[in-house]
């Protein structure tokens, strides 16, 4: 697992750094959503898809084993989860999913 995702992601955006991105006009109004991660520990087969492709690098494979002998992921920076759901979509085992954290105000206006 040498090539971490950061480099390859840059290729999809044409190697343009974020500093050149235009700022959306409503950026001050938009609130970044937060997800609460649920990991079904015993169902995981440790494929690492979620760890590899989490855009915020929230996950890491645990050093512990589950009963089947795999290393399930653990959320090391859960506060950074933006509830994008990519881990859930990629997981072949139906073993991980985020749930939108209820924010105090107008949470539903927020889109990722």
């Amino acid at each position, binding site marked *: 697992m040498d090539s971490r995702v950061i480099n390859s992601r840059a290729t999809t955006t044409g190697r343009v750094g974020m500093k050149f991105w235009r700022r959306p006009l409503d950026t001050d109004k938009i609130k970044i959503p937060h997800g609460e991660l649920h990991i079904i520990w015993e169902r995981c087969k440790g494929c690492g898809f979620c760890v590899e*492709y989490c855009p915020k690098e929230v996950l890491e494979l645990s050093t512990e084993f589950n009963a089947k002998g795999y290393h399930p992921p653990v959320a090391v920076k859960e506060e950074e989860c933006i509830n994008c759901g990519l881990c859930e979509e*990629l997981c*072949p*085992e*139906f073993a991980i999913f985020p749930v939108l954290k209820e924010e105090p105000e107008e949470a539903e206006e927020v889109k990722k």
Partner: protein
Amino acid sequence: MSTVEIVEVRGKVEKEHPMEKLLRMDRIPHIWCPTCGIGTAVKAFATALEQLEIDYNNVAVVSGIGCTGRVAGYMKLDSFHTTHGRAVPFAVGLAIAKPKMKVVVFSGDGDLISIGGNHFIHTARRNVDITVICVNNFIYAMTGGQVAPTTPILANSSTTPYGTFEYPFNLPLLAASSGAVYVARWTALHVRRLTNAFAEALQKRGFSFVEVIAPCSTLYARRNKLGDGLNLMKFYHDNSIIKHGADPREVDIGFQEKIVVGKFVDIEKPTYLDCLNDGYKRVFGDAYKVYGEEDE
């Protein structure tokens, strides 16, 4: 035997996975290997069903034999696990008997295209209203890694131990030239686009086809020294070219070469039953009772 799965949830409050309503939880965990892409394709299919907000009672899944052939057994829908290669004709009978039902064939490349190849092309030719999802992992995985009609030239399999030398099928071309009204190809990594493709294919009237390039870690990747499924996902990431509307003649897949993905065909054409009804109406006039219109 207990049918209840005991799930320990670490840390968080126990919560059901959002897709549990569409899965036979008494059969999960499934049989697929770690880093196999079939589970991801199933998740995308379930998400597509959820997004479409269709009545799940009205969807049937038919599978053949092989790793992907097991999909029918995990979907909590009316589901049929048939014989090797015969999922498509079974689905044809079912779709004609239940014209309002969404009948989906979910199977593998060997099953659909080798032993079931004739059924595949003829059903596309007739434009029977079914959706065919082919998980293509380039190999016969359930039987231990034999060469498939999709195995790229040079790839190694247990029956081509010195490398494959046969030309493989180009599945989008096969489907398109046989008459499919919707043809798309995505990899297991392109989950969101794959989900959209499933949703589009399900809404399409007629023979719709989605090819899912998916990693097989235990056989294809191992035999060809490509690492595991995660390495194949990274390969897809770096080597997929999205080209909507690409000419299906130009989307061949070579061994570890670029993979053209996208939506290649999306046309409208009367279905098998439309043509049948039109044909009989022309001959019998008002005396003919249109098939499949009445509510049950």
